[in-house]
């Protein structure tokens, strides 16, 4: 099982063969795994040191010379620390820069609250021009990276730190703006991103033991989001549970509610971090502590069904 950050590093190295792009990192290339690209294409890799704001500006300037640029650091130091540079130097000028942010969410584990970015999807989603992607496993990550490089414009990609359960056992095609039905069902729809996708599939199995047929949607394209698929499943099942390793304010759950409140008002339960900062612990301990387990998703669905 590869983590999505490892898959990201491998994808950059693989894509580097067929096309020209630059990769920048801020002294975290081993953690973000851009080192895989750096080792193969040292002349197209630049370490910018521990200066994320400047790195975003360099990336923007480079990209105006018609070369796509990928920048990497932890989600907390990209979306958080360099928010204004992403907004004003990358998104507002519509620069062809891809932000590969690793270590997103609480489930990164022991580093604790300073490093557990639970607001990046909200921050990035609120910036016009920005595409926001959060893949769940190795194959989807590889496809996401390819789609981001094919796309002309700013893209924020969020990757996790811990090994990610395999959801796809073969290479897939990924289309920005499209969700994936991982499991069909009639009683409730679980919509998830990133590490929460495998937990949602497990939750669907738990629900089956209760006689509940749950559909599971993988919504890796957080923005633009697949409105059609969300509405289709909300109509079909009448209940929606969202699952994300992110604050319940402003992330996937909010994005789903924005669609449903307008197009198909539906009861929604949001599984995620309940507006609290993170803390140290193992990923599983943290999942338990913050209510991000398959059991929590299952319970939220059952509560919705009970009404």
């Amino acid at each position, binding site marked *: 099982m590869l983590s999505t950050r490892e898959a990201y590093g491998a994808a950059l190295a693989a894509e580097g063969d067929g096309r020209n792009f630059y990769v920048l990192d801020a002294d975290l290339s081993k953690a973000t795994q851009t080192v895989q690209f750096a080792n193969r294409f040292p002349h197209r890799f630049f370490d910018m040191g521990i*200066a994320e*704001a*400047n790195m975003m500006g*360099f990336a923007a*300037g*480079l990209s*105006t010379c018609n070369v796509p640029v990928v920048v990497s650091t932890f989600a907390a130091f990209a979306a958080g620390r360099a928010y*204004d540079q992403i907004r*004003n*130097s990358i998104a507002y000028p519509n620069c062809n820069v891809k932000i590969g942010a690793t270590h997103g969410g609480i489930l990164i584990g022991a580093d604790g609250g300073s490093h557990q970015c639970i607001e990046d999807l909200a921050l990035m989603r609120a910036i016009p021009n920005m595409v926001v992607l959060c893949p769940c496993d190795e194959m989807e990550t590889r496809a996401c990276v390819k789609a981001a490089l094919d796309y002309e414009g700013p893209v924020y990609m969020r990757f996790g730190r811990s090994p990610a359960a395999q959801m796809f056992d073969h290479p897939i095609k990924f289309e920005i703006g499209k969700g994936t039905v991982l499991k069909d069902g009639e009683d409730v729809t679980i919509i998830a991103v990133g590490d929460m996708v495998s937990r949602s599939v497990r939750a669907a199995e738990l629900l089956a033991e209760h006689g509940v047929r749950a559909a599971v949607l993988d919504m890796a394209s957080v923005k633009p989001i697949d409105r059609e698929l969300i509405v289709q499943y909300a109509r079909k099942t009448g209940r929606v549970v969202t699952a994300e390793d992110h604050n319940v304010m402003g992330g996937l759950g909010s994005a789903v509610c924005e669609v449903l409140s307008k197009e198909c008002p539906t009861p929604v339960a949001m599984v995620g971090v309940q507006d609290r900062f993170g803390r140290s612990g193992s990923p599983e301990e943290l999942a338990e502590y913050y209510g991000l387990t398959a059991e929590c998703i299952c319970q939220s669905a059952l509560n919705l069904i009970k009404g």
Partner: protein
Amino acid sequence: MRMCLREEALREMARQIRIDVVDSLFHAGSGHPGGSLSAAEIMSVLYFYKMNVDPAKPDKEDRDRFVLSKGHAAPVYYAALAERGFFSREELKTLRKIDSRLQGHPDRTKTPGVDMSTGSLGQGISAAAGMALYAKKENKPFRVYCLIGDGEMQEGQVWEAMMAAAHYRLGNLTVLLDNNNLQIDGSVDKVMSIYPVKEKAQAFGWQVLEADGHDVKALSAALDESCADADTPTFIICKTTKGKGVSFMENQAGWHGAAINEEQYRMAMRELKG
């Protein structure tokens, strides 16, 4: 293509740029006169002596780049672009209006000749250095020029960019400091001193030159000298006067960002047109 105007013509161009600045700001009803007027000679020398640009092909690959890191001085940027032929002088009157290509701060997606969107201070210099890094790595012949404000140097990102430009030996990057020593809340040395700026820039590994920022001959010479070393970025400290050319705006922090009323407009135009 370069224009290479002579000294007298460059001075005259600076005067015309100032007229355009006051005219566009009067019609806009808001904006930043002080820091625009202080940079008129700098823009004249860049666009009419030094830079290789082509108004007919604003995106030409090997053009020299310019980034206005002090984005609030957009009026002087637009004036220089209009005089150079990127768009008409008449369009300057649309500054800051709805549907205008001339936004309150530079927007590369809207204005021909604008290489980078700026406005949030401290960011343009990083983008300029990124462009220079590209030219260096890909052996492109273009140079990158960047104009920053002295108050802007209080932003930490400026120093991150200076560190990185020296580290990557970006001798194709010239940064000009519009050193008028005034910012919104008062004089730069009183609000938050950036001095001694020459020694700081040198310590960061830059070649540092000094010039009277209103002397087109001194500016031309400094810009020529800035191209000498392929591996060392150049920092030109341009000593300027905020509001230069309009007597009642000179050295007045209050004219950093203020609307020009009709009477002030007439007085300013009378002075500038002589």
